[in-house]
């Protein structure tokens, strides 16, 4: 059935009525509110997208984002022209940056990227064919507003994940060898449940000795691994190249462990629940049973929700924030569309719309390199051509796109910084932030502003700022504030910019615009998106 424009608008009206939260920002919201929402929900606000959100109001804007055409990654060839394996991922990497810069399904892309940072498949040293990545990335794109259980199934059977964590061709144990535990373990530890059971508010449950309680044991890993045996690549189509990296994996019953399995889990209430899979089931039945057993554990929702909040809004969500969103997860069957709506409209996400004073002291998060570069591109009328090597720049900042150093992603959700002599805060992106990368970050900002580019195919324009600078310092500062700080740039940053502008050598509109931008964009006030 073809979706017509009128059907789409009717659907939008229905969805926005259904979703309308009493507190979601309405039509006519201030530009600063719109800009700040777009900082959280897109790859960066622009004048056009700010105006669009203001005119629609949040609910209709959200519905339009869900309905927007889904960015899709086209298939890559398996072989290069000389007939050897095509392993160069740069084409897919550049597509990512172009999609983020230009395509309208911004929120979906942000959510998909967050999911890819949880369900890690890395090109680094393991999954070498470039062709492995588009089908995987398309799963994240298509499932971004679906259910978490669907995502679990789709990624589990994706061949790139199969290759990365050995879900593919994991044969049942013999008397002298065991089914390998790689996917069975990391599926639980990193993608669904986490190491320790959590309250609905994200706090670890503590035992009588004040210690966290492990969610699973070595036996869980062994039994889970047995349950997940017996999958292989789908048959290669006629004339195609094997392995088939484009279709979901298929069962290979002869390599499936058909013994009875008892998979023990601990639940947040402290009880042990054994997921029992009877003997002689098919690989599909055991897979369904194992995934359902994982999904049924109440600790899954807080484990997943907290990370989504960390990627979109703040590294340190309050227990109340997590619990509220977990409630939505649990009452909607893990519906990510509804979960993301709640993440963005909950008061803790929106309090800062009216000023930093309304945010908790540890609110916000460091812009990860990919987000930083995209924010600059969108704010500075950036252009990315296919020959861009933008991926090398984020790599030098510690984040090589799709080349996570391990299944533990670019950075850990538990990474922590001290914020005082006896206090600490979660700050996952800081795992990439070192004396080296902090300097490189500033130097790339310098290059974008003073050279107008990173490489010749990754370009930035400060023309609007030069025009403002030729009017007055105040006009320049206002434009910087509206573009990068949702209109709420601090007085100390304004003062610092004025100091920079007081240099007698900074005597042209261009030099003024550059100096002001450099001070603003290297400031920690900008680096911490809040």
């Amino acid at each position, binding site marked *: 059935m073809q979706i017509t424009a009128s059907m789409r608008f009717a659907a939008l009206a229905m969805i926005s009525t259904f979703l309308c939260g009493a507190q979601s920002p309405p039509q006519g919201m201030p530009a600063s509110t719109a800009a700040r929402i777009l900082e959280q929900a897109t790859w960066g606000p622009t004048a056009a997208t700010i105006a669009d959100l203001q005119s629609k109001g949040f609910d209709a804007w959200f519905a339009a984002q869900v309905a927007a055409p889904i960015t899709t990654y086209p298939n890559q060839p398996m072989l290069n022209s000389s007939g050897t394996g095509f392993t160069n991922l740069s084409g897919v990497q550049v597509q990512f940056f172009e999609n983020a810069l230009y395509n309208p399904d911004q929120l979906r892309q942000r959510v998909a990227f967050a999911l890819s940072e949880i369900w890690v498949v890395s090109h680094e040293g393991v999954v070498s064919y470039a062709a492995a990545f588009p089908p995987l990335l398309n799963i994240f794109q298509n499932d971004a507003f679906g259910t978490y259980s669907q995502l679990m199934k789709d990624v589990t059977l994706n061949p790139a994940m199969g290759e990365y964590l050995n879900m593919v061709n994991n044969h049942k144990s013999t008397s002298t060898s065991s089914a*390998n535990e790689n996917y069975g373990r990391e599926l639980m530890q990193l993608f669904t449940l986490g190491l320790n059971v959590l309250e609905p508010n994200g706090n670890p449950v503590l035992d009588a000795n004040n210690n966290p309680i492990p969610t699973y044991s070595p036996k869980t890993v062994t039994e889970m691994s047995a349950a997940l045996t017996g999958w292989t690549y789908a048959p290669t189509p006629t004339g195609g190249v094997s392995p088939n990296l484009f279709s979901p994996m298929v069962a290979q019953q002869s390599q499936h462990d058909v013994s009875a399995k008892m998979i023990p889990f601990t639940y947040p209430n402290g009880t042990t629940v054994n997921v029992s899979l009877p003997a002689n089931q098919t690989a599909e039945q055991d897979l369904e049973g194992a995934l359902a057993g994982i999904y049924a554990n109440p600790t899954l929702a807080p484990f997943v929700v907290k990370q989504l909040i960390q990627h979109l809004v703040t590294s340190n969500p309050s227990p109340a924030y997590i619990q509220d969103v977990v409630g939505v997860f649990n009452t909607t069957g893990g519906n990510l569309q509804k979960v993301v709506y709640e993440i963005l409209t909950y008061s803790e996400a929106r309090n800062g719309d009216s000023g930093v004073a309304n945010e908790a002291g540890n609110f916000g998060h460091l812009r990860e390199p990919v987000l930083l570069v995209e924010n600059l591109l969108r704010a500075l009328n950036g252009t990315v051509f296919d020959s861009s090597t933008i991926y090398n720049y984020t790599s030098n900042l510690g984040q090589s796109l799709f080349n996570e150093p391990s299944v533990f992603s670019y950075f850990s959700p538990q990474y922590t910084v001290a914020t005082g002599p006896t206090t600490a805060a979660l700050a996952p992106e800081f795992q990439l932030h070192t004396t*080296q990368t902090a300097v490189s970050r500033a130097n790339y900002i310098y290059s974008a502003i003073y050279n107008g580019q990173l490489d010749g195919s990754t370009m930035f324009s400060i023309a609007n700022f030069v025009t403002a600078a030729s009017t007055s310092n105040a006009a320049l500062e206002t434009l910087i504030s509206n573009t990068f700080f949702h209109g709420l740039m601090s007085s100390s940053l304004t003062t610092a910019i004025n100091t920079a502008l*007081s240099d007698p050598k900074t005597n042209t509109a261009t030099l003024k615009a550059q100096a002001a931008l450099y001070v603003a964009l290297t400031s920690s006030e900008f680096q911490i998106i809040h």
Partner: protein
Amino acid sequence: MFSRRRFIRIGAASVGSLALRNFGLLPAMAQSTSDYKALVCVFLYGGNDSNNTVIPIDLPQATYSEYSNLRASLALPTTSLTTARTAVDGHNYYFHGDLVELANLFTQGNLAVAANVGPLVQPVTRSQISNPAVIPAHLFSHSDQQSEWQTSDPTEQNTPFGWGGRTADQVDLQKFNTSKFPTFMSVTGNDQFGAGVNDQIELNPGGNLNLTGFDYTLAQPRSNAINTLLNTETGLSLAGAANGVMLNSISDAQLLTKALTGVTVTTTFPTTSLGAQLKQVAQIIKARETLGMQRQIFFCSFGGFDTHTVELETHRTLYPQLSQAINAFYTEMNVQSLQNSVTLFTESDFSRTFQPTTGDGSDHAWGSHHMVLGGAVKGNKIYGTFPTFALGMNDDFDTRGRWIPTGSVDQYGAALVNWFGVNASAVFPNLATFGTTNPFSFFS
């Protein structure tokens, strides 16, 4: 000129108030020694299957034929091994064939093997391991075991700081170094090993910390403005943390550039990642006097060791890189006449199951064998005890040959730290749990 905010980056630790135990930091003592010492940690990320790194041939509890039988598809034939090496105990050992440079350093007497080391809360036997109170937290989890090797805190409750960082803090208290340049340097990004009260410095191999267009005298208004911002409270704690990192960079950039100017390393290093890291370390060591350093700790890393499948093939790629890079480093230390002053050692998440997986790899295990290299090391020797090569017996955590360690990370680190000139008990508060005899007497 700059006020350096010290915001500690403490890695994966529990949030909330940092209950930092008093680790018995010694009162500051000025050092009168004029010798230089450096420790270089090479962390093998993923969990190196050290069962195939060094293989005993004729120990009473562990023979090559038992190895061959049990390791099945993972058993290396003699054609994939070095020639047998006779250690000082009269027993013979193979090394993996692609580690021939390290085997030669072993035979030469400069490389030692520490057998069956791992995080331990206390010495533990197979009958006790079902009691969670006496075994490390989250055994077999990559992130936890990496953390426990780097902090030597197997409970993960006592400290967020690395034992390298704690050692660097002692160096600071004991005033070994004459400048404010950090004692601890990583050439591989962030790490928990160097987390401590004092900040570590991170440098990319071949990199520098110079800010383009920045006037370090602050005479230029734009640079002055930036410096003011870096020292201004915004009310955002993460912004303060970011400021701290940049202030550290600014503090260290000029001295670093000055120290490295004109300093070249003459040995040819492999152009691999580990080669580049160790070459950078060698260059910094060569610049130590300008940097004002008498004691330094370095962190390097090498990943890819999580060999659940096709392990033999993967080691054929990784082990030559490991061996050649370390060999080049030791050669350069000799060129600089510092071989007795610099000790390099390995760590890893864990070793791997003696029994293979159906994919011709191995799963996560526990006790692992490591290498310690330097002119001060009494090499050609195995320190510690190899496990019995039998599945499901006393040395096995379960039935797959996950060896229960017989030496602790505390003991392993203590030997290195004592040689380094810092009191190991100040760094490893749990050391006394393992008794007064340290099997890892690499230096005495």
